[in-house]
């Protein structure tokens, strides 16, 4: 009997060797693993980080395994080229990174790479691949990049008083440190022929929260006036509300408190988010219910009062610039979206310093490291659907392309909708 037991134990020991060891997975952005000394190891590091921490694997079309198999040998060839004392330029790297990352669905994504061994012929310090921008530029209604559009839109806003009956026009700029930007705001009180009014707001980024939390902000009064015009104008004098998110590049999630919470009487779920809980590509946390509470700093039940709430958006409405119309549309029944299908960057973001919290999102640094990858921290679902790469589809499509890039027809459509709203 003892002999049998020994044999059985021996067999068990042999079988226990059948278990494989796991490869080491750097979690996305893991700093201990940053040292690389060749183009191939740099690519492999980034490939693994994206493999474990990218949040859109469930909707991604890129075959990440094929990307590895195709591009690892090409990066190894670049290393050979360098060892043969030949220059490897940023252009060489750009071609490979564009091919490897160019098809990713994350429309926030920006892959910033510095040349490990800079070439004397490089004229810039780093390359940037933006897969979302690459996709958007192929759409048949694409006109121009966001920065150019903003300049044209600002010129249009400056000329609005000549085109419409404007009772109030205020403009302000405010530095927003967290966004590393100066945000421009325009508030108009548009007057219809029948005397009713439409409070209209355009902001270059979604940045209501930092201003409305800080009464000393140079834009505080402007936003306070817009919010009060919305919530305090008597119903018979208020025709509707316009929030213009065209060329809005995104910003604060907490702006939804003002743009939705102001109009709620009870807590409501507006979207769901989830993060990468484990290194498996589909190893997500459960969907968490992202809810908004009623906000009483300014408050009005526009649903009960049947007040139309129109949001303008276009192809350069990005991130919160498009999450706002999507969530407003999902929650407030009197809302209506006019314009163009938006950019498609719908994943909430946190700064790179939050990487240990979310195990997803931006990592690296374009100034102190050889790479910086800007990618979403969470995956979002609105009305049961992940809209990454799709964006907000308006209730009424009005394309600037059909009007030689003019901004007026979209605003005219919004005013017309409000004027005729029953």
């Amino acid at each position, binding site marked *: *009997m003892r002999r*049998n037991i020994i044999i059985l134990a021996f067999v068990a020991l042999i079988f226990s060797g059948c278990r494989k060891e*796991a490869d080491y997975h750097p979690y996305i952005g893991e700093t201990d693993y940053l040292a690389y000394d060749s183009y191939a190891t740099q690519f492999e590091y980034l490939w693994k980080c994206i493999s474990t921490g990218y949040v859109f694997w469930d909707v991604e079309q890129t075959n990440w*395994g094929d990307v590895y198999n195709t591009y690892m040998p090409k990066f190894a060839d670049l290393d050979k080229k360098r060892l043969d004392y030949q220059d490897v330029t940023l252009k060489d790297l750009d071609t490979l990174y564009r091919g490897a990352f160019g098809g990713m669905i994350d429309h926030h994504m920006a892959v910033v790479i510095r040349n490990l061994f800079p070439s004397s012929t490089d004229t810039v310090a780093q390359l940037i691949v933006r897969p979302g921008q690459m996709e958007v530029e192929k759409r048949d209604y694409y006109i121009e990049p966001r920065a150019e559009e903003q300049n044209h839109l600002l010129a249009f806003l400056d000329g609005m008083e000549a085109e419409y009956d404007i009772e109030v026009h205020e403009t302000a700029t405010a530095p927003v440190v967290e966004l590393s930007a100066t945000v421009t705001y325009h508030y108009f009180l548009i007057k219809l022929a029948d005397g009713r009014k439409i409070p209209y707001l355009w902001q270059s980024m979604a940045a209501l929260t930092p201003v409305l939390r800080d009464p000393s902000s140079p834009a505080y009064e402007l936003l306070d006036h817009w919010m009060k015009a919305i919530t305090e104008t008597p119903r018979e004098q208020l025709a509707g509300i316009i929030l213009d998110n065209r060329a809005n590049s995104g910003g604060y999630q907490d702006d939804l408190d003002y743009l939705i919470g102001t109009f709620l009487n009870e807590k409501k779920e507006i979207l769901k988010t989830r993060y990468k809980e484990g*290194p*498996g590509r589909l190893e997500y946390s*459960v969907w968490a219910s992202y809810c908004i509470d009623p906000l009483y700093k300014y408050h009005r039940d526009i649903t009960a009062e049947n007040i139309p709430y129109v949001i303008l958006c276009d192809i350069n409405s990005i991130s919160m610039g498009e999450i706002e119309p999507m969530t407003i549309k999902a929650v407030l029944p009197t809302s209506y979206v006019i314009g163009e299908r938006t950019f498609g960057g719908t994943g909430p973001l946190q700064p790179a310093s939050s990487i*240990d*919290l979310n195990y997803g999102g931006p990592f690296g640094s374009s100034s102190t490291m050889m790479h910086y990858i800007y990618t979403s921290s*969470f995956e979002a679902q609105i009305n049961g659907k992940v809209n990454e790469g799709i964006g907000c589809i308006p209730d009424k499509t009005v394309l600037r392309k059909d009007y030689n890039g003019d901004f007026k027809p979209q605003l005219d459509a919004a005013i017309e909708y409000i004027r005729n709203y029953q």
Partner: protein
Amino acid sequence: MKRPTLLRLLVVALLCWTAAEVQAQWTVGLKGGITLTDPGRTNMGRVDETYSSMIGVEGGLRASYEFTDVLSLRMDLSYMQRTHYMKRNLNYLNNVFTIYTNSYLMLPIMAECTLGEDQFQVHMYFGGYGGYWMRAHVEGVTYWMTDYYINFDSFDENREFNVEDQRWAIGLVGGIGVSFDFTEHMGVGLEALYYYDLSTYHKGYTQLTDPRYLSTLSINLSLYYRFFKYEQP
């Protein structure tokens, strides 16, 4: 009509005779108990995630066929919870956790070696098993963030399986047990079986393998019935 009826009668008689002969060596019963499962995974550098074992339950049927007084073949069919736990430890997130309750249908087949010739016996088991992951339930607290706040959301739901999940499991099983016959045909058993997966429940990818193997200790009580009389030596 006569011929088929006669044939049927013959077949039934043959089956009854075979069953009577065969069942003379069978013992069948019910079993139930608790399990303790090691998730067999690391946190892969995610320093604030701690994975640990948790207790689950198990229930099912047991059957054994006795070849000799010492050697039997033992087979079970049980519904087994293989449960583990993940907790996050960062200051801001230390109330975030997930309890993974993975329910398997397990079919262990073991050689059973019996020691003792009176009512009280000791058994040793060794064999293999196949299993099927039937249900993945998750319960816990997750979070969502805005620019200023971290918010928490509790959940208790079934998780949908995806292509990364390996639902079939195979492995080795072994253990020890004791039994006590309180009548000529019936008795109770207490046993500890250790299930050692040789298949990973997470498939991984060609360039990034991440095998995870469950190991489960099952301690269960059983009530059994012998079709043959237990004979005092």
